[in-house]
C-alpha cells in the first residue's frame, strides 16, 4: 500500500550483527596464530576474505539509498569497481610483489566505467535536475492554487455577498415603510427575494470553490458537513489529531464530495461510510457504499479526481463490483 522502507534499517541492523561473528572468528584466528608461534601473519587472508563481501554490500547499499533509476546502476558499478581495485591492492601488498600489477585491473575497470553509456549521457543529469525542478514547482503551484481559491472564496463572501446582504437589508427596510403601498411593496419584496436567491447561489459557488468550514475546522468537520448535506445516509469514521496541508485537505475533501455525489446520483437508496485515517505520513480516504455497484470507473468525474490526487503523488482507486457496492479509495502523501 505505502512504499516506506523501514526494512532497510532492519536489514542493516541484521548485517551489523553479522559482523560480530566475523570479528570473533578473526580474533580466534589471531589467537591461534599467536599460539602457534606468531610466524607469518596468515590471518590477514581470511580477514581480506571477510572484508570483500562486507565492502561490496556497503557499496551496493550506498548506491541503492542515494541514487534512483539508471544512475543507481552506474553508482553500483562504480562502487563494485572501487572494491575490486582495493582488493587487488591489498592482495599485492599482502603478497609482497615488487611489480604494482593492480594498475591493470584499475585501468580495465576505469575503462569499463568510462564505457558505461551513462557516462556519455549528460542528458541524464539534466533530466534529473528537470524532474527535481518540476516536482518542486508543481507542489509550489498547487499550494499557490489552494491559497488562491481560499482568497477567492473569502472575496466572494466579504465582497459581492456582503454587498448583496446590505442591498437585501435595505430592500427589507424599504418594504417595511411601504405598508401603505402594497403594489410597490410587492415589487420591493420581489427584488429582495431575487437578492436573497443571488446570495444563496454565491454561497453554493463559494462552497464549491473552497468550503469555509474546511479552512476553519479541518477535514473531519468539513466531511461531516458534507455528510449532513448529502441526501443519502452517510457515516463518517475518522479522527485526525492535527491539521494537514491545505492542498491535501482540499483534495481529500473533493474526493469525498464527488464520491458522495456519485452515490446519491447512481444509488439513491444506498448508504455510505467515509473513513479517514493517517497511515504514517499518508492520509487514507475511503468511501464505501452498499449500492448496486458496477460503476463506470472511467467516468469524467472520477478521472478529474484521479488527476487531482495524482498531482499530489497520491493514488486513487475505484472498486465497483455488481451487487456488492462501490469503494473509492485514495491515499495522499502529506509531508
Amino acid at each position, binding site marked *: 500500500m505505502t512504499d516506506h522502507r523501514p526494512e532497510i534499517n532492519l536489514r542493516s541492523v541484521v548485517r551489523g550483527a553479522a559482523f560480530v561473528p566475523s570479528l570473533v572468528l578473526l580474533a580466534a584466528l589471531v589467537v591461534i596464530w599467536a599460539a602457534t608461534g606468531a610466524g607469518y601473519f596468515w590471518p590477514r587472508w581470511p580477514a581480506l576474505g571477510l572484508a570483500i563481501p562486507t565492502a561490496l554490500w556497503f557499496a551496493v547499499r550506498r548506491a541503492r539509498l542515494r541514487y534512483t533509476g539508471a544512475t543507481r546502476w552506474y553508482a553500483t558499478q562504480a562502487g563494485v569497481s572501487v572494491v575490486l581495485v582495493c582488493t587487488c591492492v591489498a592482495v599485492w601488498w599482502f603478497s609482497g610483489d615488487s611489480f604494482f600489477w593492480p594498475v591493470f585491473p584499475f585501468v580495465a575497470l576505469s575503462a569499463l566505467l568510462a564505457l558505461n553509456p551513462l557516462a556519455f549521457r549528460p542528458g541524464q543529469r539534466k533530466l534529473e535536475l528537470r524532474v527535481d525542478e518540476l516536482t518542486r514547482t508543481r507542489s509550489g503551484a498547487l499550494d499557490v492554487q489552494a491559497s488562491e481559491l481560499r482568497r477567492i472564496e*473569502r472575496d466572494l*463572501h*466579504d465582497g459581492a*455577498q*456582503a*454587498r*448583496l*446582504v*446590505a442591498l*437585501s*437589508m*435595505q*430592500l*427589507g*427596510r424599504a*418594504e*417595511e415603510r411601504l405598508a401603505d403601498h402594497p403594489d410597490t411593496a410587492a415589487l420591493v419584496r420581489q427584488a*429582495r427575494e431575487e*437578492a*436573497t436567491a443571488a*446570495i*444563496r447561489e454565491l*454561497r453554493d459557488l*463559494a*462552497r464549491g470553490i473552497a468550503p*469555509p*468550514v474546511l*479552512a*476553519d*475546522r479541518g477535514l473531519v*468537520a468539513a466531511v*461531516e*458537513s458534507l*455528510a*449532513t*448535506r448529502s441526501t*443519502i*445516509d452517510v457515516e463518517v469514521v475518522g479522527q485526525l489529531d492535527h491539521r494537514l496541508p491545505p492542498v491535501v485537505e482540499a483534495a481529500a475533501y473533493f474526493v469525498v464530495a464527488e464520491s458522495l455525489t456519485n452515490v446519491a446520483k447512481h444509488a439513491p437508496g444506498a448508504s455510505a461510510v467515509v473513513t479517514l485515517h493517517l497511515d504514517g505520513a499518508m492520509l487514507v480516504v475511503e468511501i464505501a457504499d452498499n449500492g448496486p455497484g458496477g460503476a463506470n470507473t472511467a467516468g469524467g468525474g472520477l478521472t478529474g479526481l484521479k488527476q487531482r490526487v495524482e498531482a499530489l503523488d497520491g493514488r486513487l482507486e475505484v472498486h465497483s463490483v455488481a451487487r456488492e457496492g462501490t469503494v473509492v479509495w485514495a491515499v495522499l502523501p502529506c509531508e
Partner: protein
Amino acid sequence: MGRAAMRVVVVEDQALLREGMVALLAENEIEVVAQAGDGPGLLRIVDGHKPDLAICDVRLPPTFTDEGIRAALEARRRHPDLAVLVLSAYVEPVYTAELLAAGQSGVGYLLKERVSEVRTFVDSVKRVAGGGTALDREVVSALIADRNRSGDGAELAALTPRERETLELIAQGRTNAAIAREMVVTLGAVEKHVSNIFTKLNLPAGDDDHRRVLAVLAYLRATGGQ
C-alpha cells in the same frame, strides 16, 4: 415612547452591514449601545456595556475564520446571562452543535440574509434577547434530515406535511402566533398540530414556548450526528 429596555451590541467587520443593521434595529426600537468590528472588540464591549444581547458575525478579523463563534462562546462563558445571536454567510452543523452546547437559552444562529426579512428578524432578536432560541431554517432542516436518516425516521414519517412544517417552525424557535402567521392558519390550527406532533413523537407536553423548543431540539439532536 414605550421603548423596550433591551440593550444590544452589534459586531460586524463590514461597515456597510453593521451600519445597516444598527439602522434597522433602531427603526424597530431596539437600542444598539455599542458596535465593534472584530473578536477582541466583541469581548471588550460586552465586558464594558453588559448588554442583553450580542449580535455577531461568524467571520471576523483578525483571523477571518470562525473568530465570531469563538468570541461569542467566550463572552457567554464570562457572562452566562448574555444572549448571543450569531449571523453567518453559511450554516455549518459543527457551529450549531457548539452554540447549542453552550446552553440552549438565549442562542440564535441565522444566515446573514435573514436580516432582510425585517419583521421575522426583529422577532428573532427579541426572542433570543428574552432567553429564547432562533435557529435558521437551514439549520433545522439539517437537524431533521439527520434525524430522519438515523434509522428511527419512522416517527417523523408519521407526521403530516403540515405537522412537519409546524415542527420545523417550532425548532426554529417560533411562537404559536408566529407559526400561525407564517403558515397562514388560525392559532387553533397551530395548537392542534403542536399537540399531534408531541403525541406522535412521544415528547413531554411543554406549556411554555421555550420549553417546547427545547423538547423538539433535544428530540432532533438525539442522534449520533450533530
